[in-house]
């Protein structure tokens, strides 16, 4: 176990780390996240003894690392840097063999045993085929695998990685991260700095969230990666959901609301949407108008978007037809609005009542704008009932626009 206790560190007079406390256990991938300049790399440098903390200790299995010699530490801890210089043409195998340096005496050359370790590590990182290649000929991803193999050849107890994938393309990123996950077994502590929060959430069991040199949150990934924490540290709004495919948290940035004066604040618009048809609409109108929406089914994309934008809405349980109560609530909302927009949504028996609500909106002398991008016949799943309603909407004075652009143009003129 690696414990970091009460660490303070300075660059000159500037305090870069303050009261850092955490511990990392074997078998769990621990990620360090935080904005630029929050002290992520510095923290790694303190752990690897490149920077001396002014206060505090780093203990590896109860031993203070500041009391260890460099060679002794190098036998216990290996570091994979962000980028490695490749100016001199050693072969990949020679580079990996250098990982044996802390295990060799001054006059000792690498023996068969060292060669075996090197070969095993290259196999583990999937780069045995590169053994005889010159490292300055390798691609970024290949090089990083060789460097990780070198770190493993040190046979360390702790592996530190500083944004190990930041210079790699997406395929290589995944490959390296899968590799890291595989390496994190019962004997190895892996601590890695991450830039990409989604990658961190997908591969780390535990996270440390840093802000201005202090730990904001430390714990299991789902405890650390919350919208509140992310807003607090990065000053961005996010929607964090469990991705059904990977079963890990996935984070999406929501564009920051512009603090624009709502010129047309008096105008209230009610959007009838569903199936994702209203998402963009809500985004683009929310900046300028008072928006309401309904009735939307829970779990629908539009439901998530409206929630994220804190739009006032009427919602119904998933997969249920719109109940009378919700229908009435929706009508109330329509009555309070000036304009009603029907998005380019599919209509089924679950949401057909929304169209009846639109009819009563016209009867209430509301302006009803209908986005008719896909012909209604193609998105009518009610055996023609929706098509009929559309016909009467047209006859009663509903305004049909062909797409969102035309809609926005029309709204401009109110």
């Amino acid at each position, binding site marked *: 176990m690696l414990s970091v206790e009460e660490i303070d560190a300075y660059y000159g007079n500037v305090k870069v780390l303050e009261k850092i406390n955490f511990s990392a256990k074997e078998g769990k991938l621990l990620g360090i996240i935080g904005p630029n300049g929050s002290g992520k790399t510095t923290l790694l440098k303190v752990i690897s003894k490149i920077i001396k903390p002014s206060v505090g200790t780093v203990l590896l299995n109860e031993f203070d690392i500041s009391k260890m010699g460099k060679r002794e530490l*190098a036998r216990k801890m290996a570091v994979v840097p962000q980028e490695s*210089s490749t100016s*001199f043409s050693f072969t990949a195998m020679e580079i990996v063999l*250098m*990982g044996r*340096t802390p295990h060799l005496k001054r*006059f000792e050359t690498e023996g068969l045993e060292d060669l075996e370790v090197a070969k095993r590590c290259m196999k583990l990182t999937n780069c045995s085929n590169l053994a005889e290649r010159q490292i300055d000929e390798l691609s970024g991803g290949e090089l990083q695998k060789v460097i990780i193999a070198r770190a493993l050849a040190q046979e360390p107890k702790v592996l530190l990685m500083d944004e190990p994938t930041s210079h790699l393309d997406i395929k290589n990123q995944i490959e390296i991260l899968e590799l890291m996950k595989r390496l994190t077994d019962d004997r190895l502590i892996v601590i890695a700095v991450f830039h990409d929060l989604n990658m961190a959430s997908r591969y780390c069991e535990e996270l440390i969230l840093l802000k201005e040199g202090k730990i904001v949150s430390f714990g299991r990934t789902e405890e650390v990666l919350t919208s509140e924490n992310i807003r607090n540290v990065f000053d961005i709004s996010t929607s964090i959901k469990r991705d059904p495919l990977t079963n890990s948290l996935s984070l999406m940035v929501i564009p920051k609301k512009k603090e624009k004066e709502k010129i047309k604040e008096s105008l209230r618009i009610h959007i009838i949407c569903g199936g994702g048809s209203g998402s963009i609409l809500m985004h683009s109108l929310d900046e300028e108008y008072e928006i309401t929406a309904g009735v939307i089914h829970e779990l629908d994309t539009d439901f998530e978007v409206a929630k994220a934008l804190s739009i006032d809405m009427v919602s119904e349980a998933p997969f249920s037809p719109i109940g009378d109560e919700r229908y009435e609530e929706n009508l109330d909302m329509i009555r309070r609005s000036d304009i009603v927009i029907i998005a380019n949504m599919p209509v089924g028996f679950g949401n057909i009542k929304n169209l009846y609500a639109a009819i009563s909106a016209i009867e209430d002398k509301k302006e009803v704008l209908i986005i008719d991008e896909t012909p209604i016949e193609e998105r009518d799943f009610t055996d023609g009932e929706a098509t009929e309603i559309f016909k009467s909407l047209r006859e009663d004075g509903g305004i049909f626009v062909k797409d969102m652009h035309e809609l926005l143009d029309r709204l401009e003129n109110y």
Partner: protein
Amino acid sequence: MKRRWILILIALIFVLAISILVSIAVGSTNIPLRTIAKIIVDHKRAFLSAEETIILQIRLPRVLLGILVGMALSVSGTTMQTLFKNPMADPYIIGISSGAAFGAVLAMRLSPTLVPLMAIVCAISTAFIVYNIAKVGGKLPVNTLLLSGIAVGYFLSAITSFMIFNSGEGLHQVVFWMMGGLWGANWDRVEIIILPICIGMVILYLFSKDMNVMLLGEESAEHLGIDVETLKKIMLIISSIITAAAVSMSGIIGFVGLIVPHIMRIMVGPDHRILLPTSALAGGILLVLADTMARTMGEIPVGIITALFGAPFFIYLLRSRKRLY
């Protein structure tokens, strides 16, 4: 050690032996190989012929001095290139040549026999000054070291040039000295520098594995358990001493220390465990052959020969192998 390495070393030692023989045989009087063999095998019989005097008192010390100087410059150049991680680095990069020249000019004003002594004293003092300028806390940032070496070098060169400019005819000798040559070779000089150069090279060789790791970058080396700051100091101090020893006896011979390491890197790769010994041997060979040529061409400065023939050879190697390192 790999078999390929041993073969390369044997080949180079063989070439060096041939070069020595050629150099002893060729000169203003050509001496047949059989006579050379006879003199070397039983020179105790003391048949003080003119040929024996030429070989034992003139050519042999000169060849040995050439080998030592060539080895020292090449090994020092290799070390400096690794220390600075810069292919342009050479043994003189931290101002040692300027310091030596300054000492030589001072000495010539007093007494020409003092030249080697003053050169080595001033060269080592220069290295010491540069080292202390560049040191920050306990650390030695290589960029600061490089720049302070250049600055101190220029400063001393300015003083040297001014002294030469002011001296009229008197100091023209020093201009030849600054081009470098093995004119002054004798057994005394060989004896003075053989120990510092040989011991220095052995010490550097002991750190060859660490120097390999240094090529990965200072921080990576640190992570692999190398005490980088100590290693840098050892590399700098030892290569300064052997360079100063060489320069004090032969003047400022250029090119060898810059190019030989590159040629050997192209031929044997970057691993210092083979690069250092092969560079030493190749430096010895290059300087002995160049000096032989310089002698037969009427004692022109050997630095002219090394550059004149070494540069095209190096360009040829560069073109035939795409990569430099």
